[in-house]
């Protein structure tokens, strides 16, 4: 089982996630795209773990998941709070901090 296809898939998923972050306006979808990027990197970590024959990559992927969980909890709470005050979940609406 070769390694390169997994890594290429990981790269493609990461790029799609990044473009999603850039183009989507709904904060929740943007967040989903961030999760996609994290998952793409997890795939790379697991693949490298197999390529190197030790489990450190899997441990790293595990920690990424933990951090992602914490991040999602706080991030969604922030989105909720913003939505509550501004009646909008668009990232473009929160644009007061500018020139």
């Amino acid at each position, binding site marked *: 089982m070769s390694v390169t296809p997994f890594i290429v898939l990981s790269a493609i998923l990461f790029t799609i996630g*990044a473009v999603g*972050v*850039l*183009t989507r*306006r709904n904060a929740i979808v943007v967040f989903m795209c961030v999760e996609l990027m994290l998952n793409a990197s997890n795939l790379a970590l697991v693949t490298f773990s197999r390529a190197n024959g030790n489990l450190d990559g899997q441990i790293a992927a595990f920690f990424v998941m933990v951090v992602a969980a914490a991040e999602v909890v706080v991030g969604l709470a922030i989105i909720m709070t913003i939505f509550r005050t501004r009646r909008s979940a668009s*990232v*473009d609406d*929160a*644009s*007061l*901090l*500018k*020139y």
Partner: protein
Amino acid sequence: MTTAMTAHVLMHAPPVVDPSSAHGVFSILWLVIALPALGAVVLLLGGKRTDRWGHLLGVATVATSFLLSLILFISLLGRHSGNRQVSQHLWTWFTAGSYHVEFGLLYDQLSALFLLLITGVGALIHVYSVGYMEHDDRRRRFFGYLNLFITAMLILVLASDFVGVFLGWEGVGLASYLLIGFWQHKPTAAAAAKKAFVINRIGDIGLSLGASLIFVTFGSTSFAVVSANAHNASSGTLTAIGLLLLLAACGKSAQFPLQSWLLDAMEGPTPVSALIHAATMVTAGVYLIVRSNFIFSLTENARTGVIVVGCITLLMGAVIGCAKDDIKKALAGSTMSQIGYMVLAAGLGPAGYAFAIFHLLTHGFFKANMFLGAGSVMHGMDDDVNMRHYGALRKAMPYTFATFSIGYLAILGVPPFAGFWSKDKIIEAAFGDNLVVGLCALIGAGVTAFYMTRLMLLTFLSEKRWEKDVHPHESPTVMTVPLMALAGLSAVGGLLLVNNWITTWLSPVVGAHVEHKLGVGSVGMSLIALVVVVLGAAIAWQLVGQRPIPTVAPEKVSFLTRAARADLYGDAFNDEVIVKPGVAGIRGLLVFDATIVDGIVEGLAAAFTAVSNAFRHVQNGFVRSYALMLFAGALVVLFALLAVNFG
């Protein structure tokens, strides 16, 4: 000066300062300085608590210093003439690399005389001030300043190092500033103090640069090292050092071209004028030149400069003294002139050093005497200084008149009073050097006779011209006793020349005395000088004594009189040549600053503002734009990684 003369000087290399360290009675040397310093500290820091007895402490410290100086002097007399230089090392002042400045004292034949003059005349003037300043609320402070001055002056003449001299030099400058402006409520006094301070600063720059150059040349500033190595330095360097020291002397001793502060300095209380601006501080320049004889003896050019300065100043001072109606300013002009004599003598080299010091001492006696006499007159005339309001005071103030007359005869150079011996010797030495210089000195003596006779006529003789409600009276005993003591010294000061004592005494410090034989001989020269003096006095008698004296100075006078009244346009000259171009330069700089400097700075600021304004639109508030920039940055990093790995 002829080249033969120069060779002659070089043959007799100037003596080296090589003191033995102090022990026995000489170990009290530091006390001479410490006592007035203690007085100054107690009086200035003690505040109002010391008001009642402060003046007594001031007198006591200086009087004790005088007694110590006397003991030291007698001990020095007891020593062998080759063993009369004593040094006392107090502490290491500062150290920088190989440069050490030791705070040490040098007690030799020269400083011994100065110690006696400063503490002796200082003590007498302290006593006099007790009476003179009796009604002044700030008498305690006055005595604090006087003690500070004595301390600084003693440091100046006792220091064994140019840096130590500089410390004393600045100290006397400060004390002089404080005392000229003592009546600071008078704007004229405040301005005079500031003027004296600023002009003295120019001289101080000369001293500090001179000391720096000495350090660069010799690697040390102590007299001992410099005097031992002076002959190794190049003549150009020595001339430069000499001229810088001359600049310093010009500032402190009110010599041309830095003379203009002395006349204004008369705004200070009269004892100050007597002590600082007649007897001691203004002679510091002469002391500096004589002390640095190991430099001046080796540089004929610098000495020529000294002679020129001395000649110009002695004539200028005398001419100014002729036209002044203010008794203190007339005396100040006379001081300038007399110090011109000393500087001239000092410029003559080994032929004149001893006479410069001799005249300095006698002048210290008779000029302090006359200043105190003038103070006594002012005391009796309700502080009026205009001589046109005096007249016929000899009956009202017999003691003052008697003592002042002795001072008058002394300054004129009438035998056997002190001035005769000292001034005649200078004139004689001047003729020995150069005919023009000698004529200057001789004419100066005649003019001196003129203005002093005029002063005497206006003040003590002629008819009464008193203002209303002025009742002249003799001053209290506490003031007349110092007058009598100083008059006594003015009368017998010439004794120092008996058997050429002073030249012999000073020769280990300034080198062997060089005598010039004049065609007319010493006695003939004295007779010629006496004739000129009598002539000057007679002209004054004719012009002033035989005519009615107007109480207001007449306006229609000759150009020379007008020029002399305006201090020979010294201030006007300074104003035109230094102050106005300076002000114009500052104005120009202001414009330069406002347009060019500010223009550059503000232009830069405006450019940055414009650039920032253009770039701030990048901050559009959309988080997605920021993310895009981040992502583009990641792309760049990726390219860089690939370029490094596969490039």
